[in-house]
């Protein structure tokens, strides 16, 4: 994990808020507000955070599916932030994404085989019989039957659809796969199938994953390192074990404490944070979390904490304890 496959620096993405038939801009969503991280070869970086905090936006910016407002994205050392669409096209072979919503990301009017084969066709990697054979292999790899290639997306179950998406992402054998909540809609048994597949593939081919999920257990299972986002910013990033053992940011702590344990005898749920998620259109001043933080101080309302190293490789953005967060 020495060399960085992907390096994201100061990524900012603002969306205009538009309304009306004429799509006039009525405001700005600060979807991603200065995010930096690096991802090594064969590494998995987990990305968690509440819904709407900008995880998907980070994911899509990395692939230049949305144009970042500012910041830099380097893939294998090359700055791809400003490459033209055409210049970018060859790079698409080395990075792929599994979308948050598998059904929506499959064209309802194409067969599963066509969908999975399309990347190969587009890059001219295979045609005719060869293409078909490749697609069949991909199907088998993700645990689908080749005879299902002729089926349309709506004829698959949620988990199968997710696997079609994965097969499509794998077709080009990319070095980086961004997985945006690939398992959120699945029940645990299917979820387990998908996760196992991803881990197997990583072992075999050395893929790197940027893995986004709500389910901390899943993230914990698959990731080497984990980043926690809150309202467009990374508030904490550390090795998995370190993060789960010593969460330093009050939000991370609240997250961990809120995970319901699948054991009726274990302690009952008690919400650790209260209040509502602030809107990314008008983010709170200072530390964005101060509106919900139990430990908020006066200066949290005005001062925005930077992401700083609190311990070996453990970075946190919190003003408590001279910027090292609150140890448990």
């Amino acid at each position, binding site marked *: 994990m020495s060399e960085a496959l992907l390096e994201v620096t100061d990524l900012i993405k603002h969306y205009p808020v538009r*309304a*009306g*038939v*004429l799509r*006039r*801009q*009525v405001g700005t969503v600060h979807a991603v507000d200065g995010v930096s991280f690096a991802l090594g070869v064969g590494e998995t970086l987990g990305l968690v955070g509440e819904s709407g905090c900008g995880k998907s936006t980070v994911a899509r910016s990395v692939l230049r599916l949305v144009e970042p407002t500012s910041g830099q994205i380097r893939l294998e050392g090359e700055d791809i932030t400003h490459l033209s669409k055409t210049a970018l096209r060859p790079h698409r072979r080395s990075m792929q994404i599994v979308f948050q919503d598998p059904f929506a990301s499959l064209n309802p009017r194409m067969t599963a085989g066509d969908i999975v084969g399309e990347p190969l066709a587009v890059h001219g990697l295979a045609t005719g019989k060869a293409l078909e054979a490749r697609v069949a292999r991909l199907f088998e790899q993700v645990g689908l039957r080749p005879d299902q290639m002729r089926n349309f997306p709506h004829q698959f179950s949620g988990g199968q659809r997710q696997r079609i998406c994965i097969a499509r992402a794998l077709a080009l054998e990319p070095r980086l796969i961004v997985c945006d909540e690939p398992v959120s809609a699945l029940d645990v048994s299917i979820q387990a199938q998908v996760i196992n597949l991803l881990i197997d593939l990583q072992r075999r081919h050395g893929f790197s994953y940027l893995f986004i999920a709500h389910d901390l257990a899943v993230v914990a299972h698959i990731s080497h390192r984990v980043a926690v986002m809150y309202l467009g910013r990374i508030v904490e990033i550390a090795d998995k074990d370190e993060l789960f053992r010593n969460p330093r940011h009050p939000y991370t702590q609240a997250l961990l404490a809120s995970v319901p344990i699948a054991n009726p005898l274990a302690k009952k749920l008690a919400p650790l944070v209260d209040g509502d998620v602030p809107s990314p259109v008008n983010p709170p001043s200072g530390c964005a979390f101060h509106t919900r933080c139990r430990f908020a101080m006066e200066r949290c309302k005005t001062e925005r904490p930077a992401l700083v190293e609190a311990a070996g490789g453990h970075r946190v953005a919190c003003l408590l304890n001279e910027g090292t967060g609150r140890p448990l």
Partner: protein
Amino acid sequence: MFAYLVRRLFLMLVTLFGISIVIFFLLRVVPGNIVDILFAAAGYVDPADKANLEKELGIDEPLIVQYWHWISGLLRGDFGYSYVSEKPALQEILPRIPITARLAGLALLFSASIGIPLGVISAVKQGTRLDYALRVVSLSGLSLPSFWLGLLILTASVAMFGQMPIFNPNPQTWLEAFATYAVPAAAVGFRSAALTMRITRSSMLEVLRQDYIRTARAKGASDAAVNYHHALKNAILPVITVIGIEAAFLIGGLIVTETVFNIPGVARFLVEAIRWRDYPIVQNLVMFIAVVVVFANFTVDMLYAVFDPRIRYTD
């Protein structure tokens, strides 16, 4: 909001400018001009006379110059003179506008007040006999040529009452005025109502399957409340769009109805003016229609915001 209106107004002007160019040059592309026609009707031509007349009317000048005369005149409020009647174009156009406006308004009213409720019913009862029946009736509204429907109405009224609703320029009573417009408006409105009904139906079908309709039912709301209070309000935007398009269309598109019912409205006048190549009338009238269309679109956009709180025009 203010900035938005300014922008909107600017775009309207751009559109109107485009239309002025299109209509001006389109008319010039058509062979024959008023002079040709006058001489054709007289069955002879004397080149000198012809040249004189062309000069008198100013149609011998280069097109650009003519265009400039027209547009600069418009900006000064000078609409020119009709070639045929030799009266000021404005004086010819203005009295016809309220006639068409009343007719179109009544037709729209008719179409909305019939089309929307029937559309709702048909959507709610989708797949039932009532739905089939309503759809068939509405389709027949769309499949009758309008001149045919108009003649049918006139013939039937003469045959049954020995009377016919022919246009009366000076209605004495309110009732008479209504009668003058109601029948042609109904003839137009039938088609319009059919269209409105179909749009309402399909839009309602879309909405009726939305989750919040289910929520309303889950609250125990009655069918009427669900259909009209919850669903229709959400389904109304496409309907408004169509009514807006119809409104724009009705201002310039009632040629056949105006002909059959002999209503001295804008559309028939426009056709006559085109036949005579009466450029000042055609150009100004088309500009007027364009203004109406553009404003109809604008009104529709504004209505969107009224009906859907998510839409707010600010800039």
